[in-house]
């Protein structure tokens, strides 16, 4: 008993020691709970909310792009997508069979769906078929009862009402690229977000985008949305109004497309607004929004007419004879010739041992600047260019908008090239040759310009002001109440070229179109109130081509298409008070292999005639177009 008592006391004592330890440990637990739930509670509350609350961005509707009269060019079309939620579908194969009875569903689609289902939680909606039309959507919707777990999701997809006719001006949208991901805008992270990749869509992308809406949702640990806590709808993108006149654009595109590869621009030089900017062939811009198939892409890239290039702003061509009014302007302004200065054209011009030909084999005889422009005499301009010199030509060219960017509000514009002595020395290390001045004097050799620069150049000749092109109309859609420009008052400064010089040039260009022997006499506008002036041009593609033609071996369509000369025409109208200007470039002479006067001038004739008939002072639609209605589908 004594022994037992001894160990009993030990037991009691040690039990008390253990109890003390237990109290201490329980106190530690209580202390820890206090630390977590009182001291650190705010931190953990925040973490708990971060766990459960997901902010989801809502893509705002992209702004519409409309023409000057409100005709929609780029809208958002509702698109329907059939999705299936596997956990609600039961037997997925039966569901797929049932869906396949209603809408086309390929074997590849089925494999993709089954793979997606395996790779996702069963509550994640899997796309069965994307971008369905209304009929397909309706067929699925009507049979929804027999399709458990299948539902229709509606979204918006960019739709270009006029398709390829506006593909270069309006541009297109496409999924966000890798580089574009480095943006402050959180929208770019969204899989169905699209950004402008070219044209106005790219230039005004930020305005068109709008502001993202947010949906605050509660999610569980697997990411399933439990409920929506708050929602803030985004702000739709701004509507962009173009100065474009879609009817004119339509004519321009049709006429250009008929020539294979061509471009045409019509500008209201009083405002600088681009009324038509055609580059043919176009492409289907909508295909980019949903993603281009490799075959589609290859077809676009391999097309010899190069549909992806906006030739009106990014095509660079020798201006050919359309350059002659510029050389004349430079010479008149420099005082090296007067309107009465005469040169004799025997059909060729000798410089040292080199012979420079006039396009007319027999020559033009004695002529002054007016007839030289009208009949496009090369020899006259060899003389003139030689007198005025390349640097003064270049100076005047830049002043009239050639060889410099026009700063039009659409990306991808090329600068072209107006050579100078300094440029050649710096680039090639070889001094400028006198003969090169002669070649440049008739718009060949190094000289290259874009069709848009040609239009601006003729606009400046026609008005005497430094016209700048602009695609977007700041004044919004034209209505009956809109103010209409009455003269060149759009803030365009005078160029500082003497009026008498301009008069001579314009008069000569009047002659080109409206007098017999003028190179574009066949394309004149008959209506005396709408008469146009212009200048033809033929741009050499290969020197050989010119020599062959000179020898009369082959002409026109007998030369391979790629080797034929380009046909150019620049024009303004009406001559009495020039307002509308136009430039047309038909690559390789178009379908008939013709020259500027034969192929390009008729297009300019149609466009300028139509532009004047549609003069906004006279034409405003009776009922303004309701763009918002169309956007809603």
């Amino acid at each position, binding site marked *: 008993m004594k022994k037992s008592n001894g160990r009993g006391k030990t037991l009691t004592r040690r039990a008390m020691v253990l109890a003390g330890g237990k109290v201490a440990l329980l106190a530690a637990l209580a202390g820890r709970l206090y630390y977590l739930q009182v001291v650190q509670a705010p931190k953990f509350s925040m973490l708990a909310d971060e766990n459960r609350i997901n902010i989801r961005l809502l893509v705002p509707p992209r702004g519409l792009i409309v023409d000057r009269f409100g005709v929609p060019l780029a809208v958002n079309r509702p698109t329907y997508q059939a999705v299936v939620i596997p956990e609600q579908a039961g037997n997925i194969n039966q569901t797929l069979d049932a869906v396949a009875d209603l809408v086309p569903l390929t074997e590849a689609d089925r494999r993709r769906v089954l793979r997606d289902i395996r790779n996702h939680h069963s509550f994640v909606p899997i796309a069965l078929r994307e971008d369905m039309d209304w009929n397909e959507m309706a067929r699925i919707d009507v049979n929804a009862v027999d399709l458990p777990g299948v539902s229709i999701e509606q979204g918006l997809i960019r739709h270009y009402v006029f398709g390829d006719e506006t593909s270069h001006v309006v541009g297109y949208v496409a999924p966000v690229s890798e580089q574009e991901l480095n943006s402050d805008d959180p929208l770019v992270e969204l899989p169905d977000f699209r950004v402008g990749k070219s044209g106005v869509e790219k230039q005004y992308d930020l305005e068109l985008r709008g502001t993202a809406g947010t949906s605050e949702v509660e999610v569980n640990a*697997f990411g399933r949305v439990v409920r929506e806590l708050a929602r803030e709808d985004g702000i739709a993108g701004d509507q962009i109004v173009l100065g474009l006149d879609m009817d004119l654009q339509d004519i321009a595109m049709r006429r250009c497309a008929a020539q294979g590869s061509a471009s045409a621009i019509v500008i209201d030089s009083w405002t600088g607004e681009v009324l038509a900017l055609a580059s043919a062939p176009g492409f289907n811009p909508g295909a980019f929004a949903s993603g281009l198939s490799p075959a589609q892409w290859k077809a676009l890239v391999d097309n010899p007419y190069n549909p992806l290039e906006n030739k009106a702003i990014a095509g660079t061509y020798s201006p050919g004879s359309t350059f002659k009014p510029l050389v004349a302007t430079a010479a008149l302004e420099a005082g090296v010739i007067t309107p009465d200065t005469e040169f004799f054209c025997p059909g060729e011009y000798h410089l040292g041992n080199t012979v420079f030909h006039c396009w007319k084999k027999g020559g033009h005889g004695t002529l002054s600047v007016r007839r030289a422009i009208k009949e496009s005499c090369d020899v006259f301009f060899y003389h003139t260019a030689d007198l005025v010199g390349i640097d003064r030509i270049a100076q005047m060219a830049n002043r009239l908008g050639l060889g410099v960017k026009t700063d039009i509000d659409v990306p991808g514009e090329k600068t072209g090239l107006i050579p100078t002595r300094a440029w050649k020395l710096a680039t090639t290390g070889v001094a400028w040759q006198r003969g090169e001045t002669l070649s440049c004097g008739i718009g060949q050799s190094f000289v290259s310009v874009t069709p848009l620069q040609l239009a601006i150049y003729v606009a400046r000749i026609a008005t005497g002001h430094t016209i700048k092109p602009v695609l977007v109309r700041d004044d919004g859609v034209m209505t009956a109440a809109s103010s209409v420009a009455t003269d060149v008052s759009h803030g365009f400064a005078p160029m500082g070229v003497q009026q008498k010089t301009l008069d001579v040039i314009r008069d000569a260009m009047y002659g080109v179109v409206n007098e017999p022997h003028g190179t574009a006499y066949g394309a004149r506008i008959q209506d005396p109130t709408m008469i146009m002036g212009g200048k033809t041009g033929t741009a050499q593609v290969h020197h050989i081509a010119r020599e062959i033609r000179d020898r009369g071996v082959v002409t026109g369509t007998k030369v391979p298409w790629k080797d034929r000369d380009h046909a150019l025409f620049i024009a303004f109208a009406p001559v009495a008070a020039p307002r509308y200007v136009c430039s047309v470039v038909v690559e390789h002479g178009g379908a008939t292999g013709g020259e500027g006067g034969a192929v390009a001038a008729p297009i300019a004739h149609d466009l300028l005639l139509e532009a004047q008939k549609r003069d906004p002072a006279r034409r405003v639609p009776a009922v303004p177009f309701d763009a918002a209605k169309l956007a809603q589908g």
Partner: protein
Amino acid sequence: MRWLYDPSQTQQTLSVKLLNMNWPLVALVTTIACVGFAMLYSAGNGSWHPWAERQVVRYLVAALIMLAVAMVDIRVWLRAAYGFYAVTMILLIAVEVRGAIGMGAQRWIDLGIIQIQPSEFMKIALVMVLARYFNGMPAEEIRNPVKLIVPALLILVPAAMVLKQPDLGTAIMLVLGGAAMFFLAGVRLWKFAVMLAVAGAVVPFAWHHLREYQKNRILTFLNPENDPLGAGYHSLQAKIAVGSGGVFGKGYLSGTQAHLSFLPERQTDFIFTILGEEFGLVGGLVLLALYAVVFVYGYAIAFRSRSHFGRLLAFGITTNLFLYVFINVAMVIGLLPVVGVPLPLVSYGGTSMLTVMFGFGLLMSVYVHRDVRIGRYGEAET
């Protein structure tokens, strides 16, 4: 009532025993179990299904077993101790063998209606067998280190087997529970120091033998934020749940962590997180207080017992319960690594409920037979 109860009486009738039950303790245990039901109802997103309903049934069955255990004479338990230990040991080996033959690690045996984990029973069996061993040992023998070899093996062999399963939590419980019995029995403190030193020497070796996930758990315990989506996920999410509960909690059934499935194992080992999240600091402290009262009862029963075996048993079971509670709560709130120990009476699980209630049954038996004097070999003394 005195006429009903004669303290010197070594044989009591069943009705007398029932009257002598520590009913307040039964009420306390039931209260804690009810907290568990409420938490499991919440864990099931406000539904009796799938956990709460089954837990209630289990509790009722286990309560009957507890009563039955309490009615059995304390001396029977003393005599059954070795046998109980041996049977548990055989089951443990059976699990081990089956696990080796079958599909990898298995901790339980399927009895059809219930799956039992022998390692859980071992916690009680170990207390019983050590209580009996030390009961039969005079104080001077306890000083003899050689006499400690057998009880040390009684602890270490099952602990090693459980560790190999691998179940670090239960292994730690067995070692700590056994060590507590040594301590209570009066083993000299320097021997613990020696054991500790030996254990320290073994740690690098043991570390080498730990499974990768066990190493990760210990490493991420030291800095869980390092790997929030990997090994630290459990402990970080548990801390977020408890911490975001604040003082008064988010309200019953309103815990976002629990109901949005951010808490892993929320119905078993991490059930305390639901309490902490939905009832805050107040809820957590109330539950800890309830447990503390249970421990006090356990101690009171031990002190009240006239037999050395009864005291050892009562202290041992109480200490075991304490270890359950402490290790579980400490790991949930990030004081200890996540080792996998259930919260007694609250966590969902049949074996742990059965084990804990069996323990309470033994505790009650000590209480009911508090005045029975027991000799070194289980014979009644007068």
